[in-house]
């Protein structure tokens, strides 16, 4: 509200400012729109992941993206629905062969994707929590402790989400919508035991 604000009572202004500016569209709608564009010849089918070089090394940039996504999910509208009671699932985001953004603009675009996805989950009451993990890994157990760099394996867990879902298939469906997959990452879905 930048103009003719004189006739706007503070209460009115406050209420307007509290209104959401975004809402998650139904996931099926995205598929419908992609199909419609493809049918009109406006879109090529998804091909090889990328023409740009793929870097497997862990990169701080990638972690920033995950952090942004998690943060967005946590800090989103405080009036968002509480997580739906029911089974909970952990979605472990593995590094896989995701393409690391090459440019700041590309990186920011990735942030927007994770943010939109996390917000969608929060809106639907499915987002429970999420954290990014640092690179450092220490393995402890019967074998001698080993300090391992996160760059040593593709099984590196970059972060995780905890979501609520109606059943395992539903959780898989949520995971399939995560932008992490579109960038070559992988997701491990595990039910959380109810004890």
């Amino acid at each position, binding site marked *: 509200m*930048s103009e003719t604000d004189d006739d706007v009572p503070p209460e*009115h202004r406050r209420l307007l400012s509290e209104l959401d500016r975004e809402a998650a569209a139904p996931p099926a709608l995205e598929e419908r729109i992609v199909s419609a564009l493809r049918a009109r010849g406006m879109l090529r089918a998804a091909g090889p992941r990328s023409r740009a070089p793929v870097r497997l090394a862990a990169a701080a940039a990638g972690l920033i993206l995950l952090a942004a996504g998690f943060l967005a999910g946590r800090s989103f509208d405080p009036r968002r629905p509480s997580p739906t009671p029911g089974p909970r699932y952990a979605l472990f985001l593995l590094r896989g062969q995701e393409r690391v953004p090459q440019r700041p603009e590309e990186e920011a675009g990735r942030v927007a994707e994770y943010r939109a996805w996390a917000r969608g989950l929060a809106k639907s009451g499915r987002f429970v929590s999420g954290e990014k993990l640092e690179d450092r890994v220490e393995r402890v157990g019967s074998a001698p402790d080993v300090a391992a760099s996160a760059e040593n394996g593709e099984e590196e867990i970059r972060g995780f989400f905890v979501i609520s879902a109606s059943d395992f298939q539903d959780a898989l469906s949520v995971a399939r919508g995560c932008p992490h997959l579109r960038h070559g990452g992988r997701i491990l879905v595990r039910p959380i035991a109810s004890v």
Partner: protein
Amino acid sequence: MTRAESESGTDRALVSDFLESRDEGAFRRLYAAHTPRLYLFLLRLSGGREAEAEELLQETWIRASSSLPAFRWQSALATWLCGIALNAWREAARARSPVCASIESAAEEIPAGPPETRADGTGRVDLERAIRRLPEGFREVLLLHDLEGYTHEEIAGLLGISPGTSKSQLSRARGWLRRWLVAEAGSAQKEGVQ
């Protein structure tokens, strides 16, 4: 770098990737970045009718995909997309009811009293629902100005009206909401007394 500059840089990269490749993944990234805002805008424009908002969102992206090569970045990408969405909605509204689509005729529809009101369990008033019940012409101007940040000159260009008409419609829309807020507050007071 300001937030606007950062968003602009992001949008340019997303659009450039999409136009260079016409790749499905590139489109999905663009879609993910802009759809949440577009969808809510359309949902509000269509008075909360989800099926209509979904149809309009699809139409918006079809038109945008076709017109993107001609986009010259004289406005923010979000603003441009919002304009496409608005046009799609107005065309649909005209097809549905030529009379209601006219902002001037909508002035005749403005109710004298407040709409049905509701307060949720926390006392938060349902302004969202009140906005959706505004006559279409008033709703357009209120959404574009108070929620999407358009100027009256921009709204005038989008809606084919004068900036003065835009100002007057906004004022009347706000007045309608204000009456509704007062009525809501009065209703809450009565409940408190009882």
